[in-house]
């Protein structure tokens, strides 16, 4: 009987070593250890042994059974891990193949830049307001100290819709609406679409966009204006950007200034971008004209303020080095996808 056991052990272990597939292993397990398996048959055959031999023999058979079970488990693990390795190897990819990206959407470049501006000014306490695009002469001109037939109206060729109605030529109209509706302290920007009768070319569009800014409070000075614009310039053009005021004229501000920033391409040394003078004109600004304040019921002896107007399209074309403003309104997907 012992010899029989040893023979079985040897044969089983030898056979096991040759197995490769999980299915073969399972069949083998059933053949040895199943209900009708060889080891089970040995246990059953113990009935034929003398009673005194049975315990020792039982022990031996159980020993063999455990031994074979362990060997089977080990073999199973070996096969599983080998198969897994094979699978992983077979599943190797060319990782340089292109990804499967969904087509990404996005904002129009003008609105990407606008979002930045809103963020900058909102963090400085500016409310973001809106105004109508069809304006009356009162809001677009008269209340901004540009009376009828004033030469300042020559500066902008206006699209008229009716006797007194026009497409606003500047977001400054929103200054008046804001000051009429709210009392100081006022800190607002008004982004919006504006219109001027300019023929379309690489740098002109009859439809373009401005961001108007207005601050009115007690004790507001030109230094505050410079402070706000410097903050804006640092955020947009980099923190070492310098800001320069040059005298200018707008009917609704006094003093009025053109605002230049040091050229970020050459750091102010002079290059092609800044046409050699080291500065780039970015916006017009000034202290709100006392007559404009008074017209809105704000006492210019008590309050002062400043206003500025940023050309969003220009800011966008310079930021992205877009050579032709018409691209902004053509909306070619290959253009839009770049932003």
């Amino acid at each position: 009987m012992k010899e029989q056991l040893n023979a079985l052990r040897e044969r089983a272990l030898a056979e096991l070593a040759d197995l490769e597939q999980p299915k073969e292993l399972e069949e083998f397990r059933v053949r040895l250890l199943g209900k009708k398996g060889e080891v089970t048959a040995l246990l059953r055959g113990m009935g034929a042994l003398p009673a005194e031999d049975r315990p020792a023999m039982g022990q031996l058979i159980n020993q063999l059974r455990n031994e074979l079970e362990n060997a089977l488990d080990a073999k199973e693990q070996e096969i599983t891990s080998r198969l897994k390795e094979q699978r992983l190897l077979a599943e190797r990819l060319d990782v340089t193949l292109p990804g499967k990206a969904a087509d990404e959407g996005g904002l129009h470049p003008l609105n990407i830049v606008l979002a930045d501006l809103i963020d900058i000014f909102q963090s400085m306490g500016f409310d973001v307001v809106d105004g109508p695009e069809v304006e009356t002469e009162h809001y677009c001109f008269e209340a901004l100290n540009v009376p009828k037939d004033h030469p300042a109206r020559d500066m902008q060729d206006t699209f008229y819709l009716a006797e007194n109605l026009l497409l606003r030529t500047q977001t400054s109209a929103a200054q008046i609406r804001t000051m009429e509706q709210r009392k100081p302290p006022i800190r607002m920007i008004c982004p919006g679409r504006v219109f001027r009768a300019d023929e379309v070319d690489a740098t002109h569009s009859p439809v373009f966009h401005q961001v108007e800014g207005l601050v009115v409070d007690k004790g507001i000075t030109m230094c505050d204006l410079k402070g706000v614009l410097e903050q804006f310039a640092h955020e947009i053009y980099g923190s070492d950007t310098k800001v320069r005021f040059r005298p200018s004229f707008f009917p609704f501000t006094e003093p009025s200034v053109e605002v230049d920033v040091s050229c970020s391409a050459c750091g102010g040394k002079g290059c092609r971008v800044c046409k050699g003078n080291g500065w780039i004109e970015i916006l017009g600004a000034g202290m709100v004209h006392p007559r404009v304040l008074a017209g809105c019921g704000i006492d210019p002896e008590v309050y002062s303020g400043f206003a500025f107007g940023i050309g969003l399209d220009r800011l966008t074309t310079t930021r992205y080095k877009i050579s032709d403003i018409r691209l902004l309104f053509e909306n070619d997907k290959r253009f839009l996808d770049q932003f």
Partner: protein
Amino acid sequence: MLCSGEELCLKEADYPGAEEYGILILKEDVPTGTDMREILHLNDVIIDFSITSNRPDCQSVLGIAREVAVALKREFRAPTPVYQTAGGDIHDHIAITVQDYDLCPRYMGRIVRNLRIAPSPDWMKDCLRAAGMRPINNIVDITNFVMLETGHPMHAFDLRDIAGNQIIVRRAADGEPITTLDGKDHVLNSDMLVIADAEAPSCLAGIMGGLNSEIKDDTTDLLFECAKFRRDSVRRTARALGMRTESSARFEKGVDTRGTEYAMNRALQLIAELDAGDIIDGVIDCHEELAEDRVLRVTADSITALLGVKIPTDAIVDILNRLEIRTVLEGDTLVCTVPSFRDDIEGRADLAEEVMRVYGYDHIVATPMTGSIIRGKKLPERIHTDLLKSTLIAQGMREISTYSFISSKAPDTLNLAADDARRNAVTLINPLGEEYSTMRTQLVSSMLTVLSTNHNRKNTAVRFFEVSKLFVPHALPLTEQPDEIPALALGLYGDGEDFFTLKGIVETLLERFALRVEFTRSEEPYLHPGRQAAVVAGGEVIGVFGEVHPDTADTYDLGVRTYVAQLTLAPLFAAVEKKHTLYKPLPRFPAVERDLALLCDEELPVAEIERTIRSAGGHLLESVKLFDVYQGAQIAAGKKSVAFSLYFRGADATLTDADIDPALKKIFDRLQEKGCTLRT
């Protein structure tokens, strides 16, 4: 190189012999190899100034010189006009009457006789040419020279052509004609100021002289005019007649009433200097009382308070005086007398600017904003628009931007009916052209144009959106501001895009804004009649979407199935205002799924079946999901098969058949009423 004078665009006055036929022969004494610019006196330095419209006083050499003197801290010296007169009396030759002082506050006349008309000396010709003017003869040149030097336009009349020896400054009669010296005929109206003689207008005041009274080669006696005309009057007249001259440009911006005297004297001095005629004694100077120089009283502190820069008071006084704003200090008050040529100076803000621009803007130090305001707010509409855009972008949509005005033919391209409300559009009075002439009442045509551009440039698939305004007039012709209605356009084409991808985008958006809507069949002429739907919220159509009609696609040269939508945004914004998100506990028990395959009439909308299931399903029915719609071999003609998965779930137990069967029974009953049968 051999050239004719004509080839070099030269006139006789530029170089003798320039107008002769053939090669221009230079004078004998010109050495060979001399730069032609030297010979023609074209090598002067020309400085271009950009003059802001508040500074008409700087539209002259003297005005600029005054500024330069201030900037360089140098003395400003203007020529002192002195000349000899030849006796006589102006009143023997001319009478001048101003009828309309409101348009002509000052009119001054002088007579010069025995004219000796000749070319001007080279120095004067060079100056005129450098300023872009063509030398004519000494008389005309003097008027132009004085205008450039002093900023005061001058005019010279041939005295013999002034009928009745009378000058009358008056409004034209309606329909009165004039031929200006450029040979053009104009018909005038009573809003226009003319300089007339006893019979007819002789000159358009401040704009251009008349052909009949211009200075001719044989003119012997002249009348010099130097006047101040109201700028808005000149501007209106010049605009109305489509004229713009050096003279009108200056009057439009503003000419100093007091400076006329200086300009006139300067012209006479030049007459004497060039020996161009004999100056008759006497001046006729018509004006109402001339305004005194204005006196402004401000404190130095009020100036520096606006600037935020401490400028010593004596520096302020010094700067203002150098600018010829005569300033003295009385206590701490600056008493400033503003010269007449600076009528832009009205108060302390103007004085502050004068002081600062001379003192130097570099002295302005940036200070950070202070005050009680911490963080700015956005208007709700802007917040909602941001949400709208981010929702669309998350679905792979690109934002576009198009003009607010479109072609007046846009409604035709969309086949809109003759009585369609969208044809009631606001039009521009002065558009750049027909294609930009109408404020849009819909965003679809702009979207189709952009889609077409992209398709024709071989962009194979696009998803676009635009958020913009519709301009809807209350009445036409326009009497008040139109409504500006925020709206959204969607447009897409490409592989895999169909009616339902567009609908999916619309649904996602509506869900994001918590707006409950129904989709019903719609009848937009520019959309496929069987593939379009209206978005209905609270009984009101808030938008439409669908596949573009083949005819419209042809109009826009879109050789691909294209899908567009337009929604008005106010209902979405209103809905999202009410949206209040609260956490719902996650389910603790599994849902039980029952599939339902139905056979029904093919015309029965699936949405109606779904609505029926939901309303009959009771509170245990959690969700209903369509998973198949089929028509074909196994289905009778005129019928369709529709299959749903129904999910039931209990809040506190796993449901059994006994729980669900009553609900299913009720659903079957209701569906039977709709003509649905169960497929087995």
